């Protein structure tokens, strides 16, 4: 199970990077970035998985005893929550930027924003 997710995660990371590095359209690049981020989140979640563990929500009585051996790791899950929100913020901001860039040059091609160089 965890191998599937972690493999998927890494593949999504690579796909995201591919998009960032090859696409010309800003929106696609942002999507690529989103993919990259998501891939990392998936990798993070994979870390949390413990064979045979259940979600760390102690809504059943039996979970309250020897909890540590029955649940999956809550920490990466907490981390991924934070990471997702951060990714959301960054993506939102990037989109805002893309909008403004489009207003500036009426183009979404990343090649057309090279006023600063060298």
């Amino acid at each position, binding site marked *: 199970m965890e191998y599937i997710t972690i493999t998927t995660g890494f593949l999504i*990371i690579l796909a995201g*990077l591919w998009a*960032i*590095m*090859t696409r010309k359209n*800003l929106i696609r*690049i942002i999507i690529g*970035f989103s993919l*990259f*981020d998501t891939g*990392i989140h998936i*990798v*993070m979640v994979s*870390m949390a998985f413990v064979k045979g563990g259940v979600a760390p929500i102690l809504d059943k009585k039996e979970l309250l005893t020897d909890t540590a051996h029955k649940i999956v790791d809550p*920490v*990466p899950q907490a*981390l991924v929550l*934070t*990471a997702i929100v*951060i990714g959301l*913020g*960054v993506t939102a*901001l*990037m989109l805002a*930027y*893309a909008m*403004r*860039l489009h207003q*500036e*040059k009426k183009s979404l091609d*990343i*090649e057309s*924003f*090279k*006023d*600063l*160089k*060298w």
Partner: protein
Amino acid sequence: MISPIHILTIGLGGAFALGFVPKKAKDAAAVLMLAAIALMGVLTGSWLIGLINGESAQQIFTAGFKPPFSINLLMGLNESVLTTAVNFIGLLGGIYLYRNLKEAGNHAVMVFLIFIMGLNVVIMTRDIFNLFVFLEIVSIATAGLVILTESGKSIQAGFKYMLATGIISGVLLLGIIFAYYYSGTLNIDGLTAANIGALKGGSVALLLIMVSIILELKSFPANGWGLDIYEGSNAGIGAMLSAATATAMYFVLSKLLEMAGSEWNYWVALIGAVSFVGSNVLALKQRIAKRLLGYSSIGQIGLLMIILGFKDVLGDNTPYVAFGILFSHYFAKAGLFWLAGIVKQNDIANWAVIRKKPYFLFLMGTFIFALIGFPPFPSFFAKWELVMELVNTGNLPWVVAILFGSMMEAVYLFRWFGYAIKGENENIEDFKIEWNKILPVGIVAIALYVTGYFTSQHTDAGAAINWIPLFFVAAIFILDFLPVFIKNTIAIIGMAFYFYTIYPDLDNLRLVFEAIFMIGGILTLIAGYAYKGTRPGFYPVALLMYAGLTTIIEAQNTLQFFFGWELMTAGSYFLIIRGKRSMPHGLSYMLFSVGGAYALLMGLGMAFAGQGSYDMSIINSISYIPYWAYGLLIVGFLTKTAALGLHIWLPGAHGEAESDVSPMVSAILLKAGVFGIVLTLIGMGGENNAYPWLPYALGWLGAITAFSGNLMAVFQEDAKRLLAYSSIGQLGYIVLGFAMMSHLGWLGGFSYVVNHFLYKAVLFLTIGAVVLRVKTHNMYEMGGLIKRMPLAFTAVMIGIIALSGVPPLSGFAGKWLFYNAILEKGWYLQGAIMFFSGGIAFMYLWRLIHTIFLGQLKDNHRNVKEISIWFLIPIYTLLAGIMVYSVKPQWVLQPLGDIVAQWFPDGQLTWDGGTAFTKYGHWAGTAVAVTIIAAFLVVTALLMISTRKAHKVKQFDITYSGERPERPETTHVAYNVFEGLYQAMWVATIPLVEKWWNKVSDFLHDTAGIVRRIYSGNGQSYVIHIVLFIIVTYFVIIGG
């Protein structure tokens, strides 16, 4: 004391509270923000004071659990210093950006506040994921602040920044989660204990963490986005990024480096070195001020990374060194960015406009000198300590890299500064002054001086520095508004009094040089009375140079010596660049000086290595690769004496300087280099030293320098350049003399030192005064001035006779001693070259006196007056010195001989009355003078008797084949007089050295021009750089 966690409370609370401030009360929002930052500053500042006074560091636990189970923060000494610094600069930056923030509205104010708060937490946090979160806060806030003052460029820069930092933080996150996976903890101390680097995957996780932090520091070459943001954003934001963010990130790196383990030290240092050198080389080609500052910031961070990488080597000194560099960078870079915002000029050539408000120029100079590491700024002491320790531990390649990078930095910063001082500024719009923008700049400038002073007090060697001359300079600087007459009097009295108080403490060797520096200084300052007005800026810089010179003489330890050396360099740089056309020459002077100073620094480092002391006596017993050490010291000093190969700065610098500055920099300043060489050669162990090849090479260098300097002088059309080249030649003699390492050679050298001071001061002062009258340097535009300025002519005549070494005047003493020394030493070919140089010298001397004073008087000079009395006073005082020396050479040579006898005791020179005897020959100076003068007088009397009725004719009463000349210009043979000699010897005048240095310069600039094309401006390629950087570091560090 209040818990540091309330920084968060204040920062976030303030930010959230800002939401309630009505949109229209713009001032209220900005003031609230400043108050919040100030409050954070007070909080951290109180911690700083407390921790300095011995309180223990405090751990802050959140959520009531101990780490590693909850996030904890640490407030230690380092943290308190850095958070205080961040809040301080944040406050100043807030003040600077007051208007921008106010106009941008509440939201922008919030962002700024959160930015500062985020940096505080980044510094304090001890949890790696928390670090990630707050790093994201900082970078998102940065992305927001970039567009504070919106332009197309800033938005582009912001987007690239977001893209790049997005990738970097993704990588960081990946690293963090795997680190957690391997170690089971997110606490930095826990991770340190877990030593995850030892595992296969763990090492990669560690690599990802480290590399992403390094990338966040905008390491070369994956830093195009960083440069864009420096260039694209508001200057005030640039200042924040460069000062505050970089400071915080640097501390993060140091935190994580502990976690990564000592094997990472090397890699961090390596990446730092690549970054430092690469970024500074690339900056060479840069002409946009803010981007230039960006390159420089990245370079400085690279340097700091090197320091971090060597923290084991530096040991307890690491904070001292790191903070020294960091604070110089922090204040200076913030100041420069702010200045960039005030001046509002992109192209560095347009910065000439800053001169319209001179105190801004002063501020800029302060920052630039602080960045390069001149005294009295903290970076000077830090760099000193760094180099000393690195050399001490044998890390020479690193020192070379550091010094090379610093050199490159000096190139572009001084080029920029040169534009500011001397560039064309008539057509550039003046900039406006806003008080809220000046205040922070002024504060950081003052802070630089203050921190510099306190940094110096930190070490024993630094505490020994005599600050009195500098305070005198500062006092003169404050009194700069006074007229010349008053300042000049103060300066002369001050110098005279200082000389009077210190001369009893000096040994004879130092007394000779101190007398040249001080008495020469006073005499040349007397000439300053000829100037009118306030002559702004002259006295502080002139006295700065003299302060440096006297510090060199008085130096008890090598740090003091180097301190004085750099002060002198700075002072003389400003003096030189005062000339009308001296911008390029000022630059090359500075670069050679800086290069020489670095050679010196390295040499002194080698002296320090193995001896562990800074006392001046360590030069006498260098044990660590002494050949190199002495060689480097000599090369360092040779840049000041303008030996061939290192001379190209001199002609322009001396030639274009002001009339009374030329003698200062030629007759006096060059002796500082000689003093250094003397010290080095003494250190090498006198006659039977263990390094025979060094003096041998030095001797040849001196001879060839004498030859080519003199030959070049022959072909000059510019009187002052002629004298400048002549100085090169004369210094060649001096170097040759000392290189002989014998009693006679040294006596000859000393004789030349005294003599060169006397006659070169006379010549430069006189020619300078003439130039002031006729307003041109070109000799062919003068002529026949003997009729108008007989006193000046007499001075020059005596000066050139003394220089040429024709008996009976004093120059012959040196020549005579030289030949005896040469015969004794067996350096015949050098001696022959020297004699040949003397013959060549004769040509330029004749040219000097002929084309200026003899021949035809030009029409427009018919009414020029005799040179100013204020020039004549020092000139004739010096002439009196020459005459005394000529008639009674034993009065000068015997004391000099006693000095030399300390190291070269065997008395090859004996005195019998007024006659000097060596093994080879004899010379009775007084008798020769009497004989010649008597013969001269008898012949004169005879001629006067027989031509008593001579008719005095005018300038065109010459035989002209029955015709009459048309104009003085066409009758005066002055232009290209030595064409024949040139046709015979043009081969020797090819400026190979200059070509070589030009090639070097072109190569570096071309390299920079090519390499910097990787910064294509495309955000995507920056991502590729980042990924490549990770890949390369992976393959280099972990290796496949």
